[in-house]
């Protein structure tokens, strides 16, 4: 699903990633950990082609993303779900519309949009809040909207950059459980986090970055 080969990413004179080699199989659930500035966000941005590697190759589903022309980037992103620490919801739109707008732009029929939005909201237990606006929701609920939006187009890969970074432990656990549930349906999940307790609790594969390098990669691992 994801293969990185000798990936370097340099911002002006700092290396955010140094010779990273990595393979993630279809259906895996992976935590990406490391101290601040280690390069976690950078690695994820390479996957959804928000950044290009300085050198090396980034394969997503066998396609070299770093060679994907600009006008094909939307097709890449439509097939992955991206979740952000700050949720990135449209403040003026309802929860329903926040989830719906992506697939509407793809020309999906209103009835199909309705079906898909409602089932995505059901997965994150928010079907009852679909007429609310984001500012009427708690942080955890907003992030669940973010997850619903990420899965509404049926992606095979979910990328979450510190999805629980702004949430309390209890809410974080709920979010992780939802992501785990989604993973159990066969969707590959990659999560970056600083949350030790969470990583230790779930016992999944843990990849540790430090100063742009993979220094540890263990199955059923713990943080640090």
């Amino acid at each position: 699903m994801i293969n990185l080969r000798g990936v370097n990413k340099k911002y002006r004179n700092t290396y955010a990633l140094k010779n990273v080699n990595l393979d993630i199989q279809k259906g895996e659930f992976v935590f990406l950990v490391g101290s601040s500035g280690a390069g976690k966000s950078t690695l994820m941005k390479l996957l959804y082609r928000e950044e290009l590697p300085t050198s090396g190759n980034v394969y997503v589903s066998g396609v070299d993303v770093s060679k994907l022309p600009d006008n094909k980037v939307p097709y890449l992103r439509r097939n992955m779900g991206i979740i952000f620490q700050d949720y990135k919801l449209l403040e003026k739109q309802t929860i329903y519309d926040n989830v719906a707008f992506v697939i509407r732009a793809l020309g999906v029929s209103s009835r199909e949009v309705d079906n898909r939005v409602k089932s995505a909201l059901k997965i994150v237990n928010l079907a009852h809040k679909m007429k609310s606006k984001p500012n009427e929701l708690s942080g955890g609920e907003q992030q669940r909207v973010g997850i619903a939006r990420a899965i509404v187009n049926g992606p095979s890969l979910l990328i979450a950059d510190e999805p629980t970074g702004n949430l309390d432990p209890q809410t974080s656990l709920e979010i992780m459980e939802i992501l785990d549930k989604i993973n159990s349906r066969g969707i590959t999940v990659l999560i970056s986090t600083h949350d030790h307790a969470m990583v230790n609790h779930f016992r999944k594969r843990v990849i540790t970055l430090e100063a742009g390098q993979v220094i540890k990669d263990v199955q059923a691992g713990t943080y640090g």
Partner: protein
Amino acid sequence: MANYLENIRPKISITQYRIALRVLIETFKGIKQAGIVNIFIIGTMAAILMIFGAIFRTSMSLSSLVNELGNVLEVSVYLKSSADPNQAAEQARQLSHVKRVKIIAKENSWENMRKDMQLPNIKNPLPDTLHVRVDSQKNIKSVADNLSKQSYVEDIRYAKDISEKIRVISDISHTATVIVLGIVGFLTMFIINNTIQLVIQSRKKEIEIMRLMGVSNWFIRLPYILQGSLYGMMATIIAIIPLSFLQGYIMQVHRFLGIPNSENSYWAMIFLLFVLSMIFGALGSLLSIKNKLKT
């Protein structure tokens, strides 16, 4: 996931239709969001277009006036009373560029004049006249000069003077049209560009999110381009109202001067206004998209 590149193939038409509908909905959302600013933009553009339309339409009428006068290829030659009209006509026919010569006997001229006016019963003061038809406008001056040198000629007259004057006016109005066209283009693009930049600025986050979620660039951009040309279209519709009054007035002048009226000029002007305002509107949007949105 493995097949995501397959989506690049053309979609079926019902999907395209839905996407087009979505783009329109997004366009109207953008317009709605601009609120009161819409009135300012459309009003200003309508005023600019109206000025341009008025100058353009007037210039077209002046053109047809010049053409009409240019078609008067006749030189009136007043003969000396001593000259024999038939002989003079024969000599005039020998000159180059002369197509036809018609003798107007002074008795006929006098009769015509008396029909039109109350005249005292005096001796006919008019000279015999030749109407000399020249083959083309550009030769009229040389023929006239030539004729005035002939011994039998008392005086000549032709439409040159007035035709020249109107030609100058017409040239000026053509130049004005072009200059105003440039100004219209610039102002339209300037206004639309600034407006759309504001709209994009206020929707920056939304656009960013759409981009990250895999919404196509053109889907994000097209609504702004449409918004720009819709402003142009609405401004034109408003500008047409005063311009149709101008058209009525111009038609009266045409009728009065007996110059063939030009219904077509009116439609040409309207067509031109629509095309120009919509193209410049779209270009203004494109400009702000270039400035404000990354690919």
